[in-house]
């Protein structure tokens, strides 16, 4: 047992971090959040790097690496608030052709979720619909979608399918559907770890700089302890997500269902609480659009809303008890 990143895993995460540093600087994100055209090369670069093929098998043209690697990438993407259906693409690439060469941009939807909402509707052309019976492909051109504004997260525009998702073409069975959704839940949880981490870093940096009563606000014990709790939540969430990822890769170490549900619970909770704490620590500035604190909370809300309900995840973990 060695529950530490390998050198290769570390290099992969560093590579994505470098890419995000280049393409997702704060100015680009603010412009995107304002709805202004901004042209991050992110998607093209990810395609070029082969990142969308992390979990897709080599037969499909993927890298055939593991969920551990995908989770590390998702974490970094979360930390940089990377926009677009990247996580869905990574998962879909395992079941759908055309993702890896960038010719289609897919999104995952859960047929049982109500109302039927599609994230990133403007750039998505193919849907992978998950339901109890299997996995289905639907072209967005076959769906009656209506954009809804404002989206809660300005970096995650949404549309509603008033009459739900068409049946579509069957591309997998019920087990495939569960596996796809589980993978997506894992990557969303990993992305939540990135949010929790970034919110903590932002809070610490601000609190060291901001002076009140002749001292940095980060010297007040109430804020220090709030940030200590942020660090605790982040590290717990990270451990939980990495363990879930490894459990998908190494099924003999435990129940993937339990591990992913637990990771979803702990990580999304960490993202929500930490992004709220980051706003609180920023004080009034945290409540402004110009500071990016709100974007972390809004992304955390998106992750919470798209990962099934926390109660359902708690139910899953509880079902393994005893």
């Amino acid at each position, binding site marked *: 047992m060695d529950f530490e990143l390998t050198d290769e895993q570390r290099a992969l995460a560093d590579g994505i971090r470098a890419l995000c540093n280049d393409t997702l600087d704060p100015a680009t994100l603010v412009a995107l959040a304002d709805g202004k055209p901004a042209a991050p090369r992110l998607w093209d670069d990810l395609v070029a790097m082969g990142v969308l093929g992390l979990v897709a098998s080599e037969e499909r043209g993927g890298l055939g690496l593991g969920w551990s690697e995908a989770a590390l990438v998702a974490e970094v993407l979360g930390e940089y608030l990377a926009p677009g259906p990247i996580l869905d693409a990574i998962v879909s690439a395992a079941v759908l052709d055309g993702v890896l060469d960038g010719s289609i941009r897919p999104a995952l939807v859960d047929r049982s*979720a*109500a*109302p*039927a*909402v599609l*994230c990133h509707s403007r750039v998505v052309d193919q849907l992978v619909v998950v339901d109890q019976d299997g996995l289905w492909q639907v072209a967005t051109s076959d769906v009656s979608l209506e954009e*809804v*504004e*404002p*989206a*809660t*997260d300005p970096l*995650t525009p*949404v549309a*509603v399918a*008033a009459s739900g998702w068409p049946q579509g073409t069957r591309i997998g069975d019920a087990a495939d559907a569960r596996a796809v959704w589980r993978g997506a839940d894992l990557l969303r949880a990993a992305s939540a770890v990135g949010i929790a981490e970034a919110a903590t870093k932002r809070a610490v940096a601000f609190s060291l700089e901001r*002076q*009140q*009563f*002749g*001292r940095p606000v980060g*010297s*007040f014990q*109430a*804020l220090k302890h709030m940030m200590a709790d942020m660090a605790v939540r982040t590290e717990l969430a990270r451990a939980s997500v990495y363990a879930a990822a490894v459990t998908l890769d190494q099924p003999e170490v435990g129940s993937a269902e339990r591990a992913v549900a637990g990771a979803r619970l702990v990580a999304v909770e960490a993202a*929500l609480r930490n992004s*709220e704490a980051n*706003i*609180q620590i920023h*004080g*009034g500035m*945290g*409540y*402004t*659009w*110009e500071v990016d*604190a*709100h974007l972390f*909370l*809004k992304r955390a*809300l*998106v992750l*919470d*809303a*798209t990962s099934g*309900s*926390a*109660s359902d995840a708690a139910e899953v973990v509880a079902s393994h008890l005893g």
Partner: protein
Amino acid sequence: MDLRFSPSEQQFRADLRRWLDEVLPQLGPQPDPDDWPARRAFDTDWQRRLYEAGYAGINWPTEYGGRGATLTEQLIYLEETTRAGAPYVGVNFVGLLHAGPTLMAEATPDQRAAHLPRILRGDEVWCQGFSEPAAGSDLASLACRARLDGDHYVVSGHKIWTSFAQVADWCELLVRTDPDAPKHRGITWLICPMDAPGIEIRPLRTIVGSSEFSEVYFDEVRIPVANRVGAENDGWRVAMVTFGFERGTGFVSDLVETDRMIGEVADLARHLPRGDGTAWDDPAVRHELGRLQAEMDALWAMTKRNLAQSERSGAPGLGGSLVKVAYSELFQRLCDLGTRLLGPASLARADLAGLPSGAVTEERLRSLSFTIAAGTSQIQRNIVAERLLGLPKERPWTSS
């Protein structure tokens, strides 16, 4: 202890209710929140109606034209107007609840005569120029500078979190007149005309995208010395004087709104499909709402106790800090529950599939400001700990 309303209090409520029933349908639709001229027109029209009906300045003494209502009547007034969905005090907030009371306590007869009747009738609108980018919780460290030049103060500096700046006629402005004095001692309170040359207003967008606050820049703005309220360098005391005016009614409208929203979230739960039934079938949801309602009821009871105690002592208590700490976090938990219930519908700040998701998600984001604005929860807890419990104050930092 008596929670029954007296016949005169019941009469006051009945009269108010009758008047609200009559007048509210006459109002036009609420203006767009970002259309400030329309908001000013709407809110001052409402103020004029209140004035004509004898409800303006409900908490102002009669000698200044106010109603001079008892605290219980004020409670009833706030409860009824909020429940009826009457307009908020809106752009009249600073004039009625802060600048006005300050003028009553500290201004010259001329200054009072010039402003108080106009505030009461909705003829003039005020804003507040206290906070600065580097002076938030530590307000007394403000740096906006005023130097005396003949019979004018010349003001340069930068204020922030100023509501209504775009449509205000006047600003209650705190400036530093003695930079060498200890920080609380070199501050002066000025009545600043907002049309003076050298004032620039830049709206600040909030996380919900609204323009509720502005930054106000002062570049060599000339303000007559006659506009000074109180003595030079005594402005900190002048600014603090209004805290004595607040006697426990500050959060009544917010509590009424919170109470209503608990009901709305319960209603949402009853309509949200979940399996074969609705979210309301989940005991966890019901119990969470039951707890929130129990705490809300306690907050409402605490408000009544605060009022009764203030009525007797004539002084404000620390009840406000207690209410604010509890209520702001209660409201956040409520909104958190609301969005969790909504699930995918919380992805937009708009109503989806017949659900009130727009309002709930908007409140979810807006609730973040509750523990920040008007004294952060950290500051409020310091106040409770130091003033109510007698725990030691924070000490200055040593540079060791």
